[in-house]
């Protein structure tokens, strides 16, 4: 997994609550058997004026000039500022894959859907929760400051604005550790082989029907 330590990046504000995973990456692209290449179709239905299908040359499609991601001042954004319940809907990991492939490393929102939140960490994408008032303030500052950048420091768990205001965020110690070091959870879990086997042996006695087929 990609490491995440510290980043100062351009912010793009997506002022909409309940952005669902179908909006982040529409289902026609889920037919891919790969993990990469979803960036050009991130927010597909909002981003383009023509309907998208897999296999198209997305560079040739008509962009929706009104969609925030298409505005010149936000090109190259690495931080997505969002509203409540971001990533609701399906469990598709294609959503963080698409955000990552587009170039995002951080999302800042007041809340996320649980599965999306979890999936993000597994892909080196950091979902930060800040309270609603702070997020409102960031939306305002971002709107009136072209080239608005935030600094995100995972080690100290802080989001720092251009004026130097710093906001602390929470993150689970384990997830932080994995992200800082780019660790793969499967390898870590496989270090617990003895414990997993011991659990199975005990369970086989308590609930043998769970091991029949």
């Amino acid at each position, binding site marked *: 997994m990609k490491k995440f330590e510290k980043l100062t990046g351009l912010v793009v504000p997506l002022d*909409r609550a309940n952005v669902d995973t*179908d909006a982040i990456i529409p289902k026609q692209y889920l*037919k891919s*058997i790969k993990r990469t290449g979803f960036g050009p179709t991130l927010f597909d239905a909002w981003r383009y004026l023509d309907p998208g299908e897999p296999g198209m040359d997305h560079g040739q499609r008509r962009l929706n000039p009104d969609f925030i991601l298409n505005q010149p001042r936000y090109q190259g954004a690495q931080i997505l500022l969002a509203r409540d319940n971001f990533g609701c*809907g399906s469990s598709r990991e294609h959503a963080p894959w698409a955000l990552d492939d587009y170039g995002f490393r951080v999302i800042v929102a007041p809340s996320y859907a649980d599965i999306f939140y979890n999936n993000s960490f597994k892909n080196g994408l950091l979902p930060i929760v800040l309270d609603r008032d702070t997020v409102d303030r960031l939306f305002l500052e971002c709107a009136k400051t072209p080239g608005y950048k935030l600094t995100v420091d995972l080690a100290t768990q802080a989001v720092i604005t251009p004026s130097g205001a710093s906001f602390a965020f929470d993150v689970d110690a384990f997830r932080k550790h994995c992200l800082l070091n780019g660790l793969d959870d499967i390898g870590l879990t496989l270090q617990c082989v003895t414990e997993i086997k011991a659990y199975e042996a005990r369970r086989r006695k308590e609930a043998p029907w*769970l091991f029949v087929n």
Partner: protein
Amino acid sequence: MAAKTLYDKLWDAHIVRTNEDGTALLYIDRQLVHEVTSPQAFEGLRQAGRKLWRIDANLATADHNVPTTDRSKGIADAVSRLQVETLDQNCRDFGITEFDMADPRQGIVHVVGPEQGATLPGMTVVCGDSHTSTHGAFGALAFGIGTSEVEHALATQCLIQKKSRNMRVRVDGELGPGVTAKDVVLAIIGKIGTAGGNGCAIEFAGSAIMSLSVEGRMTVCNMAIEAGARAGMVAVDVKTIEYFRGRPYAPKAALWDQAAQAWRALHSDVDASFDVEVSLNAADIKPQVSWGTSPEMVVAVDGRVPDPAKEGDTVKRGSYEAALQYMGLAANTPIRDIRLDKIFIGSCTNSRIEDLRAAAVVVKGKKVANTIKLAMVVPGSGLVKTQAEKEGLDKVFKDAGFEWREPGCSMCLAMNADRLEPGERCASTSNRNFEGRQGAGGRTHLVSPAMAAAAAIAGHFVDVREL
């Protein structure tokens, strides 16, 4: 010992180890696998040279991409075909049992698991699909996972999880005639919102929930995720236990007795406390229709499309306006005046035999309105389809002008050829009305099977209680 909730009991029984930060390594009893969220997981295993931890804990079926029309010619769309073939190949390579497209047991993963008894009370069940919450209806801890976790569970039979908060939604009293499990869950989501259960595992309880059949409870738990909860669950009772008797993967003989005995303890202790409690009165629930692009945008059939101008919260007002714009609806339109183009009866929410029976009762002897372009019934599994045909339900639907299809996800998410065209409006028994969900520009109204059937006959929404 402290009183425990059902969720606490299920959680505690599956802890392999507790980590310092409070997360746990949780043992997974069953993983269900389908074609969309698994290819990258198998690829990851191959790249790392990893094997499956416990092959027999997995069961696979193809559902999202499969055609619901004649399958003898295979899948026309090359990208879909490759994905389904990739699942077949991965299952062969790793030794996983798969109900492939030609298997009579194939169907939507959440219908197939319980139908086979592959999902059992007391299990932890995962699948790379958010509607895995469905399986909680049997007193199991079931939740959707992403592809990295699919790979993790395949390789280790475990997942690193953080415990959710305990939430209980009680629905007490008696449901009125024509009011179904779907209406109950839509009313719950209308009340608590799509983020109402974020961070929680919801236990659905109360006399109205326990009076539902197990299939009805599956409909309710199916949509727990639409309320933001990764897991939904219902306590085990006699109905739950009887449901599994004789199912292919269920325990037999002495093991059955031992299992059934253990399952009886799968309920919250009377004095268990919940972090969040919500209650609804069953008698207040009417048949529901969603009007917007989020399942919380729902009203009773005798209501009207809301007026965003009356909404105080600005973020909410904005999302209401956007939803009305997308849905092509004017504020204050009576729900009954909304005319439909297509009708979809199916999906893991409402495609089981009882759902088809409920719709057939409404349809019997009538004709689909001639303004409806397409009305289709897509059974949840091959076995549901066979059972329905045995009961003559296929004939009832076909005589009325419905199409009777092969099992799969179909127009629930339109990954196969079944979809809405831009601007088309559909009464659907599925679970999500997101923009573009049933096809780009398509407009979805979520309803119960009886309500969808009644709308097919009338051409617009009608109150099933008045039929």
